[in-house]
């Protein structure tokens, strides 16, 4: 599903995004993946039926926005990633270019080294795909 961006070859982008998300989703520790605009609109997602993609996008946009500002206000340099650790999993929000976010939900005991590397690679892919629009 695609929304928000205006022009370009949408079908191709939709497919490319799906591929990028799917390769991340294939990791055993990854439960769900979504791509959202930084202002909180959903672009594409592989989320379980129980979660509302619109809410996920808005919440992660708020998290990233707040984390970015916190990093700046507390003199911690450029924002890289926000990780919310909860009892039943982690929500990792990563910048994918200037306008988008990659949201990844992983299991609580996930092997973070592999997960974070894969997220980094996927975020770059998403950035490249969306820069075409």
């Amino acid at each position, binding site marked *: 599903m695609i929304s928000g961006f205006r022009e370009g070859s949408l079908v191709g982008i939709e497919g490319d995004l799906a591929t990028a998300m799917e390769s991340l989703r294939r990791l055993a520790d990854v439960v769900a993946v979504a791509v959202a605009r930084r202002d*909180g609109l959903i672009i594409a997602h592989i989320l379980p039926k129980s979660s509302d993609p619109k*809410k996920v996008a808005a919440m992660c*946009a708020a998290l*990233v926005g*707040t984390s970015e*500002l916190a990093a700046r206000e507390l003199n911690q340099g450029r924002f890289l990633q926000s990780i919310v650790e909860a009892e039943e999993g982690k929500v990792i929000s990563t910048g994918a270019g200037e306008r988008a976010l990659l949201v990844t939900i992983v299991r609580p005991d996930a092997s973070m080294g592999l997960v974070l590397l894969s997220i980094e690679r996927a975020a770059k892919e998403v950035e490249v795909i969306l820069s075409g629009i």
Partner: protein
Amino acid sequence: MGRARTGLQILDSWLGGGFEKPSTILFFSDHPTERRLFAEQFVTTGLKEGERCLYVDFYRAPALARRDLRKFGPFPEDRLVFVDGTSSQLLIPSSERYIVHSLDTFDEIMDTIEGAVRDAKPERIVIDSMEFLADRFSSEGLFERWRKLSEVTKSTGSVVCYMFLNWLYGQKEVRRMDESNDYTVEFQSKVRTGILEHYMRIRDHRPGKRATNWIPLTFREVVGLSVYFPRILVTGPPDAGKSTVVQKLCQSAMSVDQLGTTVAFDYGNVHVSGLEAEIFGTPGQERFEFIFQIFARQVNGVLLVVDSTREEDLPRAKQILKIVGSDVPLVILANKVDLGGAMGPERIRESLSLAPTVPVVPTVATEGKGLLEGLTLLAEQLVGAR
């Protein structure tokens, strides 16, 4: 007759310019509070305006009291006169013009104070405090001489503040104190979730009796006391100008925004003429309603911003008002009135089905126009003036 300003604009406007001259004010509390700060603020405000002030102090040496008063910023020191009520207790010499030489006889103490009032003819007087005397002398004699002192202060045109921390009188005496003064200023301090909060309210006993709500206060050195609202919410439909309102109203605001949309909140602190407030701006988009729910808790008041050129946004504004609830003080900022085709305040009032008491203020947030007026109108509601 003139008015004795408190230095807190919002209170002064409630008081019609300040406490009437002459008048008597009871500074009352049931528990130890920050009431002395208000008395000190009252004295230093007078001094800064060139008035003469008399401070009767039984607790602090005058040098110590002067140092405390300087926390409110510089003032002409020669206009401040003390009745020194501590040196004789400490058996040390005093160089003050008026000295209570012995605390043994009540009448002698009161003669000294009355003499100082007649001699110095101060515009403002603080008696710090009546409970010091009430502890030592019987209430009948005390009330009688208290009344006489008030006659003297009225004859000199003074405004006098009687500080009274009540730990020994019952309701009857308290009512008698209320009745024999023109105003009562009450103080309360509460600990709420680990934060000490200070409140005051003013009751005017003169004909047409009225009272303010409990008003939260905060203190900063040099600035003095301010009326303090810990949470004012700026909300409204998308693109109404909420973030601009927060940024123009506050000296240094921060906004969590992405691609021109607020995704979390705006925050800023505003401090103007005796009024301080923490301002929180919410996102306008419906998808950020969860943020709204976080910030809409325990708000003191709401500034609802609407784009005056977009009638189609008013249903969303109405929906937001519903979430906010009807018991929260509210001011509508009719923004972007400088643009063509702006709706008039009455049209907005009608569309939002507002009560006639809710002010609709035309604003141009980008230029800061109308914003302080809106905040002041909100503060007046909070204080209880409207």
